[in-house]
């Protein structure tokens, strides 16, 4: 049985078994006093290596998950499908995306770009089931010289634990700066001590979850609430090749569209009806192909019904004579709705393809959703003028189609500096 914790120092005095999505994991049970002691141990860590040495060690630990023969990677691949609900093939896609960016040079570059010193102890509250959501922040915190306590999410309680294990093998001294734990969020003396004792809290989750943490821990919480992404396919500019439907399909399919960088809506801009129809056809074919190569994961009844409800709506609107249409397979849906506008998708590879006459209509089409947009994917790429125009609308990330889900460490998630919550002082 895998453990859902990795603590520096002695083993916890009490553990129990908890089933995560039916998978039993050993969980450490910490009282408030235990948590105080853990935080004190993290603060008293012996490691005082140079930033370069720390970045080198973190990068070396991360590389183990890129090595096909590494036993830690094999353990991640064995456990994560059942824990997260993603298919095995998806986990294989997720690991290089989680660990690939943790390169020594990039860690050092981002972690030392600002002159402010790191806080002493960063708390990270992870959420959801995307593998390794908190890893980049934990890696940056360690590279910057902070100690770090990661509270994992029920949807993915393992990968940060395995990373801590890797780090303790690569650099036992630096590993004394990292603790990974799961506990049931929202209650208990353990959580209260954690929120009180950490210097800053980087928190992921819904608006409600982040808001609740902020109410308890105040301004030291740097929140990353749920966000959404869209993509733009320009048919109104000269192009050397047809738009890359396969790239768009990959952005939609990765993490079954559950990520904040997953495009929920694709906008074609201008172009002829034939161009648009060809793109839709290719997109549908590519999603169908991906459904075989990169199978979609588990969906519960409410998620399946949410997708079906949208499909039913568009099927009946089409039967009623509206110029909309629907293509779909067991694990994917492409809806052609040539009106501008936006509505959030029920996800699980359900994408609405809308149409704009000109790129400048994008902000109006997104309307009240614009402030929640994390990323806009674009094709063709590069298009510096369009990218700058989108960035000026407050969108933190503009990326080429096919790379929407591969942000670097310098990703300004939620519009914030990547070191927010890791270095001292408030930074935008």
């Amino acid at each position, binding site marked *: 049985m895998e453990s859902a914790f990795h603590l520096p120092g002695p083993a916890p005095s009490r553990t129990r078994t908890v089933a995560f999505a039916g998978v039993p994991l050993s969980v450490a049970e910490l009282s408030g006093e235990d948590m105080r002691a853990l935080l004190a141990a993290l603060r008293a860590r012996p490691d005082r290596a140079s930033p370069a040495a720390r970045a080198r060690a973190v990068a070396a630990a991360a590389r183990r998950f890129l090595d096909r023969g590494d036993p830690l990677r094999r353990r991640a691949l064995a456990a994560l499908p059942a824990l997260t*609900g993603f298919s095995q093939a998806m986990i294989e896609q997720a690991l290089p995306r989680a660990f690939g960016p943790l390169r020594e040079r990039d860690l050092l570059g981002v972690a030392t770009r600002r002159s402010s010193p790191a806080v002493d102890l960063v708390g990270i509250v992870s*959420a*959801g*089931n*995307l593998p390794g*959501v908190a890893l980049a922040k934990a890696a940056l915190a360690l590279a910057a010289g902070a100690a770090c306590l990661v509270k994992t999410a029920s*949807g993915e309680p393992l990968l940060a634990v395995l990373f801590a294990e890797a780090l303790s093998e690569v650099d036992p001294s630096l590993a004394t700066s990292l603790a990974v734990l799961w506990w049931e969020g929202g209650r208990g003396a353990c959580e209260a001590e954690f929120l009180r004792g950490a210097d800053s809290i980087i928190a*992921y989750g*819904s608006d409600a979850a982040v808001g609740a943490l902020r109410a308890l821990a105040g301004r030291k919480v740097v929140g*990353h609430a*749920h*966000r*959404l*992404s869209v993509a733009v396919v320009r048919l109104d500019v000269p192009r050397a090749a047809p738009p890359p439907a396969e790239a768009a399909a990959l952005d939609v399919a990765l*993490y*079954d*569209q*559950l*990520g*904040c960088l*997953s495009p*929920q809506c694709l906008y074609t801009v201008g172009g002829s009806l034939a161009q648009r129809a060809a793109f839709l056809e290719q997109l549908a074919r590519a999603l169908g192909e991906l459904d075989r190569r990169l199978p979609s994961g588990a*969906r*519960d*009844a*409410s*998620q*399946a*019904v*949410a997708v*079906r*409800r*949208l499909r*039913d*709506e568009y*099927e*009946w*609107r089409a*039967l*009623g004579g509206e110029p909309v249409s629907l293509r779909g397979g*067991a694990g994917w849906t492409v809806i052609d709705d040539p009106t501008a506008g936006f*509505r*959030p*998708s*029920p*996800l699980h590879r359900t994408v609405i393809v809308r149409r704009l006459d000109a790129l400048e209509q994008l902000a109006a089409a997104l309307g009240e959703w614009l402030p*929640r947009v994390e990323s806009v994917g674009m094709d063709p790429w590069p298009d510096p003028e369009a990218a700058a125009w989108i960035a000026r609308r407050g969108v933190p990330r503009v990326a080429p189609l096919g790379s929407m889900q591969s942000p670097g460490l310098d990703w300004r998630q939620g519009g914030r500096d990547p070191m927010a919550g890791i270095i001292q002082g408030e930074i935008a």
Partner: protein
Amino acid sequence: MLSEVREFIAAPVPGRFGELALRVFRFQFERNEPYRRFCEQHGRTPQQVDGWTQIPAVPVSAFRHAELVCSGLPTGSVFLTSGTTQGVERRGRHHVPDPSIYRAVALDHFRRCVLPDGLRPRFLVLAPALAEQPQSSLCQMIEWLGADLGAAAPEVFIRGGEVCAEPLRERLREIEPTGEPVLLIGVTYAFLRFIDGCRADGVRFRLPYGSRIVDTGGTKGRSRPMSRNGLLRAFWETFGVPGYAVANEYGMTEMCSQFYDDAVLNHFRGRKRDRSKLAPPWVRTRLVSARSLAPVARGERGLLRHFDLANVGSVLALQTEDVGIETGEGFEVLGRAAGAEARGCALLLESFAQ
């Protein structure tokens, strides 16, 4: 076709259900244009369907987007669904070309499930009057029930969407000593509001023996959530009506027939069993997987799919989003398969659906 259905409802022959359902399906395929296109799109025409379970089921949301009515029939009545915050803002329209069929099924199954002892109680209504909401199928049904099965004209205690709590309390106080059983019927959230008010004021009633309660619609986010058992306890505490005299109605605007808990019927027949929703003889219900829409194995949860002959003028096969499980001679409704939680970090449609 209408007369054949009317005859079946008047004297059901269970063995004939499948054959009649297939003939109603053929009739609807020929006369209901959007339904025909739907069937063709799914490759399920009358030539390709050999059993009633294969009749293509229309999602209930389709009534918001298409006029699902058979041509060549009288105009009859049109009932509107309540508003929705999901998707395109439209209310569903259910055409009922022959309201006499709707009336017949409403009366017959209510009598069977709620008044099996032939009681003619006074109707006290916690739903809007038909005059206030003429396009509500529920209001129409209650109007018919009160007029045909009640001891006197139904007395309505909702005006302008508000529960008339004080007049109802007064009326209940008058009824308590008479010994004459009454039937309280209405929407669940209105009952809850009235009960909350009574609890706050320490008011309780002991309605005469034989009194009944029929509630419908659930709380639908309009009041605090309460379990079925909690509600039954609240009915007992506030009205003195025991659980065996309470029947929850399950129905929908898009469907002419209704289902009721079998609790009253079981009590009347001296049977002890868990309550389940009972279908009338002209309705069959199947459970299907939310993901594949294929039938689920017995004992598994699934989405309810109804086949209602009384829907002869529109579409008889309806796919709901209600999750149920087979129990006893019927099924139990476990709730709506909605309100999906975000598993990742993306905003999703359902977060904003309520």
